[in-house]
């Protein structure tokens, strides 16, 4: 089934993408065998989103606005938070968990031996496809919020697309940077748990947090750029400067992540496999 291009003359990058695509497809095929998991996932998502909406209702039963954000605008933030969390749980988290296991058990050898870019390979071996339910639910919530806030023009939509792309790349990079730590410290589980806990803070716009915390949620965990900035684009409060900073920051983080990954991989000495 794997149609890896056979022609040797092709550029290696194109081949890498083809291999990645095959891996992704394979991961999806493996996962969709377990269809009952969809029901379980839907139940869990319903409970989580229901709770979040109840909290929102509770907050707005005591106040008319939260740090300058209206209820409908916070729906947009919540929706984007759920959506992005779904993307991470579908594509990023399962791969990073597997990478950590591979480093600990020495089975990363098998990925390293393949003639494609290892970072690309380790990032597309697993897809937890049922978590896409959260992406759909998040999109519906955010869409409802946008519809109630008012018209979004073409410029806003473009800015939103750019901001979301930056956010997705940033979150992926942060996960990879943290996971790469596994090359030095074998037990990284508690660190990812910490990271997961911090992600919950993104349900609210980072602008409401006190200064020291806002810096942490922008630089250490890129919640500000991943959730708040795209939400700003959809609620008409994003400035060109913020978007520029987000794009610049993303570029820097991508370069740093690539360098850090390279250092990590050089530390690796397959314990046994």
């Amino acid at each position, binding site marked *: 089934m794997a149609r890896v291009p056979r022609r040797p003359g092709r550029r290696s990058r194109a081949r890498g993408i083809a291999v990645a695509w095959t891996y992704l497809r394979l991961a999806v095929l493996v996962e969709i065998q377990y269809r009952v998991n969809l029901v379980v996932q839907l139940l*869990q998502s319903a409970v989580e989103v229901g709770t979040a909406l109840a909290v929102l209702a509770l907050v707005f039963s005591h106040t008319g606005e939260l740090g300058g954000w209206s209820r409908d605008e916070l729906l947009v933030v919540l929706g984007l938070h759920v959506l992005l969390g779904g993307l991470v749980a579908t594509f990023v988290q399962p791969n990073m968990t597997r990478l950590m296991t591979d480093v600990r058990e020495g089975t990363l050898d098998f990925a390293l031996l393949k003639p494609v870019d290892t970072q690309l390979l380790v990032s597309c071996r697993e897809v937890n496809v049922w978590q896409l339910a959260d992406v759909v639910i998040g999109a519906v919530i955010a869409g409802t919020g946008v519809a109630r806030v008012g018209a979004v023009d073409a410029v806003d939509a473009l800015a939103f697309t750019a901001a979301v792309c930056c956010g997705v790349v940033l979150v992926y990079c942060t996960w990879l940077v943290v996971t790469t730590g596994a090359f030095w410290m074998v*037990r990284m589980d508690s660190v990812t748990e910490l990271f997961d806990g911090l992600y919950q803070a993104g349900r609210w716009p980072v602008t409401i947090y006190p200064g020291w915390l806002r810096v942490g949620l922008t630089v250490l965990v890129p919640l500000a750029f991943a959730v708040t900035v795209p939400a700003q684009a959809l609620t008409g409060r994003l400035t060109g400067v913020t978007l520029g900073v987000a794009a610049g920051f993303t570029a820097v983080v991508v370069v740093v992540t690539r360098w850090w990954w390279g250092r990590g991989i050089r530390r690796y000495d397959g314990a046994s496999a």
Partner: protein
Amino acid sequence: MTALDVPAVPAVSARRRRVRVTPAFYYTVAKASVVTQFQYRAANYFYMVGMVTEPVVYLVVWTTVARAQGGSVGGITPGELAAYYIVWTLVRNMNIVLTPYAWEERIREGRMSGELLRPVHPIHYDIAFFAGWKVPVILMWLPIGGLLALLFHPSTDVRPLEVAVFAVAIWGAYLIRTMFMWVLGLLTFWTTRVSAIFEAWFTAELLLSGRLVPMSLMPDWVRSVAMFTPFPSSFGFPIESLVGSRSTGELLRGLAVQGLWIAVGAGVVSLTWRFAVRRYSAVGN
């Protein structure tokens, strides 16, 4: 482990079906747990720090609301909110008991076989083990609580009686939660698809216990519902016994309600256990 050699069945009581649980049993298991958990200081600490995010988020949100409402929300000032959520972090740690998900592993791996051979009811082991764990947890919480106090400026005035009630109430909360988590865990004997039930329970707990927000900020009907559940006794009551301003009568009544829920929980545990254990059949060791 030394915990195993505690009350070897004495020959005289051969007719008795169960060995009496001695304080020595509790002491030995708890001590082993303290020593074990001090070895995993770093892992325990990461875990505790990760847990701080949740109350900080709630605190910031409600402080923002209070400021927007001219200094207080439902009569609670930002300083009082800070006090509430800082004590929250300690009570949350006291609330950690054997997760019901652990039962799946216990049953799947046949580990219950060994536990059933012991002459005491297995719940005693769990109570003692997690109670011992609380000692390093409380010690490690002190700097976290101190740091949070520096950052968020809590304000509260505490009477000596409140401290005493609080010191009892956190252990009452611990016992209540142990009992009900055990009952939930026992459901695993009947079905393996339990996660939906667990998640529903945890959600109800989040909303009705005072974990999300002080119960006085909840709508009236939610508070009336909560009154008929064990949730406020295991979360909101211990916190408010220290940071709230309750009369002596209310404090003592709160402790009595806790005692009632412990008794109810223990009753349900012993009843469920009797039926659950009959369904157990071990595969493997």
